[in-house]
């Protein structure tokens, strides 16, 4: 199943803040930041279980993260990924000449993935280093 025409926002969550202070290369950081938060009604359309890995695709890249229901909804049409290496595979590097990339408001598409793994921070960055 898949969902189109979503808007991706990224930003701080307290779990992600605690996890990064505890170690950026830890499993705790994966659990805190390699997640995508869905509006409850949007998630129903995906017809899958909470926690299933999903592939998020924007014009700037794609990444596989775990799905989770948002505690900060309802926000139909909006998905949220905590700031960090996973979110940054998807954000728009263009700053419209002001220097600051556009970390919020990308058009996104979501697919439920049957196979495919959520990478940890080091493996994910390794793919960029070797690209």
């Amino acid at each position: 199943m898949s969902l189109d025409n979503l808007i991706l926002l990224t930003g701080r969550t307290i779990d992600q803040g605690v996890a990064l202070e505890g170690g950026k290369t830890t499993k705790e950081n994966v659990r805190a930041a390699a997640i995508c938060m869905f509006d409850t009604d949007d998630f129903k359309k995906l017809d899958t279980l909470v926690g299933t890995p999903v592939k998020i695709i924007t014009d700037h890249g794609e990444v596989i993260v775990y799905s989770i229901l948002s505690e900060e909804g309802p926000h139909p049409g909006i998905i949220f990924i905590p700031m960090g290496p996973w979110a940054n595979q998807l954000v728009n590097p263009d700053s419209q000449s002001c220097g600051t990339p556009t970390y919020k408001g990308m058009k996104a598409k979501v697919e439920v993935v049957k196979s495919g793994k959520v990478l940890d921070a080091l493996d994910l960055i390794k793919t960029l280093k070797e690209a």
Partner: protein
Amino acid sequence: MAVKKIKTIYDVLCPFCGTLCDDLEVDIADNKVVEVRNACQIGTKKFYSSNPNEHRYETPMIKKNGKLERASWEEAIDKAADILANAKRPLLYGFSSTECEAQSKGVELAEILGGVLDNTASVCHGPSLLAKQDVGQPGATLGEFKNRADLVIFWGSNPVHAHPRHLSRYSEFVRGYFRKDGRNDRYIVVVDPRNTHTAQIADLYIQVNPSEDYELLNAIRAVLRGVELDEKEVSGVSMEKIKELVNTMKTCSYGVIFFGMGLTQSLSHHRNIDAAICLTRELNDHTKFSIIPMRGHYNVAGANQVFTWNTGYAYSIDFSRGYARYNPGEFSSVEVLLKDQVDASLIVASDPASNFPAASVKNLFKHPLIVIDPHESPTTVYADIVLPAAIAGIEAEGTAYRMDNVPLRLRKVKDAPGECLTDKIILEKLIEKVKEKRGE
């Protein structure tokens, strides 16, 4: 078993977010943090993670045969200085999670090297600084808001998650001189596309469409001037709600807008802040109103101050022509990496590999990379040289600027483990070695 002697240190500053809480109590035994009181979850974790652990670097590391291996300080500094002195245009980035004395050494090194100097404001509140340069900023210190504000607006910021103690220290629950009943004496408004945890405890939540804050801000300005807009809604917000908000703003005795990444990192960037500041200015025709950015890193405001004293500019500075030039759209770290315009990088107390867009990160790793950092991160793991630092504010003293630009003195509560040195000493060693290699 012998009972360990516990030393308690009071009034400790928290080196995490821009709220810069200054009331922490930290218990130390055997040079280890054993208890932290008064801090939020994130601050507490930061203090505990200063204890020796598998993610902490205790000696300099140099990449040999594709793996980071332990090295002496002499070897590491020599090799790092070699890379920097031979680079045509190195990038010096980070600085927001260290103290001001180290930041000024960073400026000195960037000038000697003719490099690009930047701090983390370039990926967070850089647009706020641009807007401030455009139209000024009616602001005040956090104490004023605590004692006076009866209308508090959080626009595109979620302090419950990002500045966990801001609400209880300055803006929502705290009792102030003229706000004796704390939360009951304040009206809280949250403007955000998501019904955030901050919005869930607000009096008025305004759900704005993503990336449409600019339109909403200007609609509010129009209504404030008495213009009747021929629209049913703007940016997903009904005209009734806009009028209600304008009325609330006009009739409060002291209002404040705290704004965050929701405005700076969405499509209109600094134009959003321009509009928000102009709105604040216009509100001062009716009542007293201020606006202030919710700064992220505990000393990013300090980095802007120190860079400005030394170069005239707050961030994204290029020294490649021998004098300071400023143009964030051209010299911000993300831009110079994206266009592959630097040939080496020195990262101080930051993790750009995690926090920059993927396209910029790819180019970061194409050239030699030196990192000064206490902890393992995706940036340090793939770096060529790692110089282990004492954590400023925990293992080193120094000055830091709170989000309202009030300087406070960071405390040292314990010694750094292993061979760690302070950021300032490491940068001084690099400056000395670079000068030596250049025959100065």
